[in-house]
């Protein structure tokens, strides 16, 4: 099956969970539907949800929690 990726729309810091006490939004092997949140980007003192545009199964999460990311960088791989 063709692989798709979910990209970061903007530069910032990537977070896999809504707050430090919560579970991650998604894990490898999860099914996601369009509109599901897969992580947060923090930049300019605010947080922005990164959402799946297409559905699929998460085959890999490409960025560690709290890693810096660039605009257009692949965050999550779907198959």
């Amino acid at each position, binding site marked *: 099956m063709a692989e798709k990726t979910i990209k970061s*729309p903007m530069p910032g810091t990537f977070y896999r969970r809504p707050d430090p006490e919560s579970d991650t939004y998604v894990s490898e092997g999860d099914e996601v539907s369009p509109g599901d949140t897969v992580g947060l980007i923090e930049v300019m003192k605010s947080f922005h949800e990164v959402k799946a545009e297409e559905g699929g199964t998460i085959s890999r999460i490409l960025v560690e929690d709290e890693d810096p990311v660039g605009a257009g960088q692949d965050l999550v791989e779907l198959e």
Partner: protein
Amino acid sequence: MAIRVLQPGLLTTVQDTGRFGEYDIGMPPSGAMDVFSYQVANYLVGNEEGAAGLEITYFGPQLEFTEAAVVAVTGAEMPPKVNGESVPTWEAFRVEEGDVLSFDYLRSGARSYLAVAGGIEVPVFLHSRSTYTLIGLGGHEGRKLQQDDELRVGEAGDGSGRVGMAVAREQIPSYPAEAEIRVIIGLASYRLTEESMRTFLDTTWTVTPDADRVGYRYRGGELQFVEREQPAGAGSDQANVVDFGYPVGSIQVPGGVEPIVLMNDAVTGGGYATIGTVISVDRDKLAQTGTNHKTRFRSVDLAEALQARKERRQKMAEIRQALS
């Protein structure tokens, strides 16, 4: 004539040259962070100097034009598209009624500028159309753009002769991920130890994710202040002095960690020792650095700062001349 905001982008605001001259009431200037790119966009579409445009930060909006217009995009490399087709930057082009202008992911820099012939028509507040979002003044309703906003555009003459006018390639700045920013050391640099001043100038600093229109915060080193008994009126933190004015571009170091360069929307005064000030020309360059980019500060004297400003004015006059 209007622009309809289909998607606002991350932080898209109406800005012009700024609200200078209001420090006595504690009002920062706001205005375009990268003055060069903002001004050149106006030159391209034939606007009066100081016409309001859009400052687009990190992630672009989708804008629908309800009438034909001549527009130009400058600044950060965030490739613009009209109805999905690539259009040039640093060049005036025409959009037709119903066209949608959108932007690809940011590739370099941090802020793009959109000028529309006629300028963005929002009410003038204290002689400026610039948005000061922190207290909700100026610009479009005092805030960043939101979905479904409509922006009026001022009367523009027949701009058809401007289409295709472009800035010469060698005049277009590039925005590397590591910038050298020139500073004049002062006003309260005497508070820093000599060793820490060397550390400040020798460190390759990293822009933190919270850098914004208010200030740019950096990490990468620790600085020490000269120990002293604090004078009356200064706080107990060794980073404090008795309150004074903060120039735009001034650098403070609360607690000795994470220097902050105050930018266009910053507080106008306070009690942190300012160890230097970014020269006005290099505020443009700073405004095109973004989160996780690297920055080094280089000390220059006033003569070099004034020379840089003179050269920048000449360059802008040449560009304006070539486009008139």
